[in-house]
């Protein structure tokens, strides 16, 4: 197979900023409508009170929290793909890590909406932050929600930084080729990148350091989200294995999301040459592995509850399978436990659109998983007198759908403005491949270097 032409990389990627397929605009329009619907729903809820969302006692938490977990979870695979695979020097990540990182950032931004709109008094949300005030009151440092606030802000900042730093060389390329407002934007953002050797050295160091910082951070963030549940005493939330279970689940749904976006971007921005079947194959294999880890932890959790013989927890477990929320649980098992086995087949793995739909199924499964983490334990809590079933109402569903619109909109706008495929890293990948192949052809390495230089300066 013919490798990517060196000279075409810049052109292809830069072209993606200008002329996506028309479907792009349709998707943007749909997403924007969803966002507007979400804004309207939130305005209504803000005015009339949270009761409009149809949560109640004992269902004090519902979709907002499960969406929050879902979106935070989704952000993890971006870090995994870029940071962990960077550190493990997996070259195949290079064409796809940029959008994965963007996905990380935007899913955090989406996730961050939910704890806010979920508050009873949104207008007092900043009280959660420790800031000096004349009343000499601090927030409660023991509350997992406070850790959440800290973790999310840290994670959002770091992943934004990571995305941005990794993008600087590409921004410089864009700067050199852009006009108008784009020129100003890229100029400001590329921080005067000239591509000097010293710059590259500093850049490499920074990037790797950031990656080292981000990996434990990502793990800790979802562990903290897990402690929102695990630190409480609601039966079936109060589980020690929740942090790893959540992290695995996060990576699982995130990888599925990457597959979805992979196929979508490939089509919308005509990245067929970059996002190849081999990369898809590797991504899917990774997803499959993570799916199995998650399944192991999930089944392990069931076993732990069953053998613990704790009255309260067992009750919830039984209710999960035969109670009113059983369709959700069985749906989850179907989508997230059974469906991933399709990934074991190579033919399937190499079919882009099949993978697109499968990844959506996996994500649905993981979304249901988050719902069944939040709702059934509250429904059959300690106090049987309060047992009740509540299905999320229109407002909650609207905001959920709107969050998907919001995320996709932000993501696509990002891809429209910034290079969603890392140009310099793809070049590096091609370079590595060439070296590998040129060893066979006994080609002079300096010749390649010359070619590289010429391209960069624009001679070719």
């Amino acid at each position, binding site marked *: 197979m013919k490798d990517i032409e060196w000279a075409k990389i810049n052109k292809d990627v830069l072209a993606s900023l200008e002329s996506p397929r028309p479907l792009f605009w349709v998707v943007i329009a749909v997403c924007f409508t969803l966002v507007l619907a979400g804004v309207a729903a939130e305005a209504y809820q803000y005015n009339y009170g*949270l009761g409009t969302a*149809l949560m109640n006692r004992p269902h004090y938490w519902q979709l907002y929290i499960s969406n929050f977990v879902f979106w935070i979870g989704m952000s993890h695979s971006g870090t995994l793909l870029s940071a962990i695979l960077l550190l493990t020097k997996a070259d195949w990540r290079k064409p796809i890590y940029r959008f994965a990182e963007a996905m990380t950032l935007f899913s955090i931004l989406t996730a961050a909406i939910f704890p806010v709109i979920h508050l009873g008094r949104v207008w007092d949300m900043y009280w959660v932050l420790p800031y000096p005030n004349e009343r000499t009151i601090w*927030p409660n440092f*023991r509350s997992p929600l406070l850790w959440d606030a800290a973790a999310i802000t840290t994670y959002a900042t770091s992943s934004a930084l990571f995305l941005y730093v990794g993008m600087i060389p590409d921004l410089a390329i864009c700067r050199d080729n852009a006009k108008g407002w784009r020129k100003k934007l890229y100029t400001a953002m590329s921080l005067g990148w000239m591509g000097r050797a010293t710059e590259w050295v500093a850049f490499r160091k920074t990037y790797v350091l950031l990656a080292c910082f981000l990996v434990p951070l990502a793990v800790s963030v979802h562990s903290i989200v897990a402690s929102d549940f695990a630190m409480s005493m609601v039966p079936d939330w109060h589980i020690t294995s929740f942090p790893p279970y959540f992290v695995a689940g996060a990576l699982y749904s995130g990888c599925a999301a990457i597959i979805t976006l992979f196929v979508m971007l490939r089509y919308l921005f005509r990245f067929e040459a970059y996002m190849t079947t081999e990369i898809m194959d590797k991504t899917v294999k990774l997803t499959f592995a993570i799916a199995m880890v998650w399944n192991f932890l999930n089944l392990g959790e069931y076993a732990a509850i069953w053998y613990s013989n704790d009255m309260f927890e067992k009750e919830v477990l039984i209710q999960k399978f035969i109670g009113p929320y059983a369709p959700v649980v069985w749906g989850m098992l179907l989508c997230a436990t059974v469906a991933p086995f399709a990934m074991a087949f190579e033919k399937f793995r190499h079919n882009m659109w099949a993978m697109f739909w499968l990844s959506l199924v996996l994500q649905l499964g993981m979304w249901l998983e988050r719902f069944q983490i939040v709702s059934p334990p509250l429904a059959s809590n300690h106090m049987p*007198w309060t047992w009740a079933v509540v299905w999320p109402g229109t407002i909650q569903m609207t905001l959920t759908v709107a969050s998907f619109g919001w995320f996709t909109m932000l993501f696509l706008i990002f891809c429209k403005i910034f290079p969603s495929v890392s140009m310099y890293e793809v070049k590096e990948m091609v370079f590595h491949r060439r070296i590998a192949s040129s060893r066979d052809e006994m080609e002079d390495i300096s010749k390649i270097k010359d070619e590289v230089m010429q391209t960069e300066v624009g001679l070719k």
Partner: protein
Amino acid sequence: MALKRMLENWSRLRQHDYYADEPYMWGMSIDLNKCTGCGACVTACYAENNLPVVGKEHCGSGHSMHWMRIERFWTEPEDNPDVDIEEATDHPERGAHYLPMMCQQCNHAPCEPVCPVAATYHTPDALNAQVYNRCVGSRYCGNNCPFKVRYFNFFDFWNELPHPLEMQLNPDVTVRSKGIMEKCTFCVQRIRSAKDAAEDAGHHDHVEDGTLLTACQQSCPTQAIVFGNLKDEDSKVKRGWESHQVELEHFEQDKSEDVRGYRVFEELNVEPCVMYLDRVRDTEA
């Protein structure tokens, strides 16, 4: 400076029994032998604590606000060979099981550590406080409460209160707006004014037992509810706890078999301040 203080205080605060020598610890006991389930306490609480009437629609969506509620069960907790109906019948021939349930003012309250803004905390007189104006409505406390006795203002229920019903509102108790969690306070306004009255009378740190009644206790037709200071050796409630061998800090009571005292969900080690006394049925009847 502030940080140094903070660390200093932090370590001090971790001590167990921090409030051991405070003069008050409010506690309650409810005798299920006497409770008839009539609901006088429920209405008294509505009147005393400015609880909103939410109407049928909101009751239907689970948004009702009733700090004190009477739970009704038809069955025994498990097979109780003593009291079980000897023959299988189609009727609850042993009557109903009533459980008045309000905030248990736990000493290891699960709601307290999870509040992000510290709107709920423990007062030195062992009350589980809820500061309405600090609450941001994360509802974490409500989830974490095993008794599910925290009630969230899903709407501004007071907006619809027609004149002149608002004239009944108790000025000592804040009227809560939407987005705020609330719960039984053991009638803290009465506690505070009883302390105030004791201060006026020159009794520092001593509220005479029986001079302070919670609204539910006061209205209870059978006087099934007893409320008082658990630190006062002579108080009725303390004597009740002692004679029924319930100790606050234990989650498994070491007591003789026939004694009736127990606390709901004691095994969760939340140290509730409300003791219940077994319901009684005559097996010869």
